[in-house]
């Protein structure tokens, strides 16, 4: 059974369709990257799948159950979400923030899991530091730790690499791949296409609210799609470290 499924999903904002008849299924153990230019509907797709955006047509399902019919705890047990918005309200310690991922666990277990997740994101030494005293990148890693703490069967991460240095980007995506290796389904949005090709089993290209391509990264991101969806002249080159994208802006 798919961990996440959208069937003919359409989302409108006023008269404008932000997402048009999008269908997508993500299986356990898979890492699926959603890419597309700014305003293509990537965040809306994630929000629609999680029941945060109202569907004017179509269905959204988590583990085979219609998302709008799930209770709050049921939904949280099926999916954990890292939103793009990284503003934190108050100066709580890193481990307290991370422990919020385990809402239904006893405090001692939540703390234990939070400390383990902070160690995985490389912040073991900063567990007791206030999050507003951290750098933006450190704060983003604390929030990634909160996502991991949930140990959910589906992880949905909106721009998990945003604001991270190159090493931390690779670390974050490797951690998400580890989660997929333990059986979780992972859906993430990315702007770096080479990073998407390196990380994802499958890439979904969104353009103007519709799926332009869906498949293995280098196939989904073919020269034709790069031109159509991103206005890029681009081609892939195999190297020992994985595929590398060489691209330049199309002349108009």
């Amino acid at each position, binding site marked *: 059974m798919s961990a996440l499924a959208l069937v003919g999903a359409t989302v409108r904002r006023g008269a404008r369709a932000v997402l048009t008849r999008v269908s997508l299924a993500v299986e356990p153990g898979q890492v699926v990257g959603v890419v597309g230019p700014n305003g293509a509907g990537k965040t809306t797709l994630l*929000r629609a799948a*999680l029941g*945060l955006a109202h569907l004017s047509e179509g269905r959204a399902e988590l583990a085979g159950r219609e998302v709008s019919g799930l209770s*709050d*705890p049921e*939904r*949280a*047990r099926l*999916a*954990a*979400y*890292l*939103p793009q*918005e990284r*503003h*934190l*309200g*108050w*100066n*709580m*310690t890193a481990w*307290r*923030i991370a422990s*919020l991922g385990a*809402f*239904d666990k006893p405090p001692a277990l939540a703390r234990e899991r939070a400390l383990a997740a902070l160690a995985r994101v490389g912040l073991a030494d900063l567990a007791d530091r*206030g*999050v*507003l*005293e*951290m750098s933006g990148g450190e704060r983003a890693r604390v*929030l990634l730790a*909160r996502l991991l703490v949930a140990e959910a069967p589906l992880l949905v991460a909106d721009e998990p690499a945003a604001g991270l240095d190159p090493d931390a980007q690779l670390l974050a995506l490797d951690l998400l791949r580890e989660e997929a290796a333990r059986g979780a389904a992972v859906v993430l949005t990315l702007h770096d296409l080479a990073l998407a090709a390196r990380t994802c089993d499958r890439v979904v290209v969104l353009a103007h609210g519709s799926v332009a391509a869906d498949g293995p990264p280098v196939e989904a991101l073919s020269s034709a799609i790069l031109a159509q969806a991103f206005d890029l002249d681009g081609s892939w080159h195999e190297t020992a470290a994985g595929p590398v994208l060489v691209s330049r802006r199309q002349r108009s």
Partner: protein
Amino acid sequence: MRPWALNLLLSLAVVALAAAGLLLGETPLSHAQLAQAFADPASGAHEVLFAIRLPRTAAALVVGAALGLAGAVMQGLLRNPLADPGVLGVSGGAGLGAALAISLGLVGSAGAIEGAALAAALAVGALLTWLAARFREPETLILFGVAFSAFLGALTSLVFNFSASPVTLAEVFAWLLGSVANRDWADIGRELPALIIGGGLCAYAARGLVMLTLGEEAAALSGLPMTRLRAAAVAGASLLTGASVAMAGIVGFVGLAAPHLVRAGAGGDPGRILVPSALAGAVLLAAADIAARLIPTDQELKLGVVTALFGAPLFALIAWRAARSWRG
């Protein structure tokens, strides 16, 4: 400071201020009179201590605690350090209720003004609770609150506008300035149900406030019943604010400043801050009431005037010191 140490310290301060509230006042009492007050229930000193100062001090502590708690809940709910119990228009509603009751000539009937204030506050609170369940973003709630406050303020001005008698005007004004003078146990008892239910709702909402630190979207998917918890926070803070305005008029700055005084000690946690905020509110208001009694003026200073007079500079000082940690 550990949270328990902070609560202990604040509790000691509450006890000390309660004692000071009993012993200090316009009528100085000698040691002999104090001894007499405890020994002889028929003495004048007993009357001063137990029928005047004790309920007044209790009212100050209760109102301060309610405002401190309501302020902490509002700041947590709206993720905004500038929020206070009045920000959503609940105090404005209570003020309008009281102004209407006074101008309708209900001053004589016991509890009529307080009842009207509480009823109006609850009506605004009910509307806000419904809005909080419908709209997830704190900005939306703040905008509605600003609209309510302005509209209710305009209605209160309208009451002034049409009020024929200057005596009525003076009474409304005096009431709006806030005071706990001449409060008796019946005044406190009347508001107790609202205070207890409000406090209970705030305690229930605490874990939702903690989750809101992550933002609305992350909280919505956190597994907690956020719609219900947000509604409970609004309803609880409205009940507390309405009951305290009904008991003491409009007293500013306590609800705004109390959470800031204890935020660092509570580790920034918007759930753990609730109890220390209530205690700090009680301390602030009891101290302000003692100051109102002791500062020698022809007319006794009104509580709302004292809290704003001392509270605003104190608040500026806190803001100055906190600015560094907010910037992050």
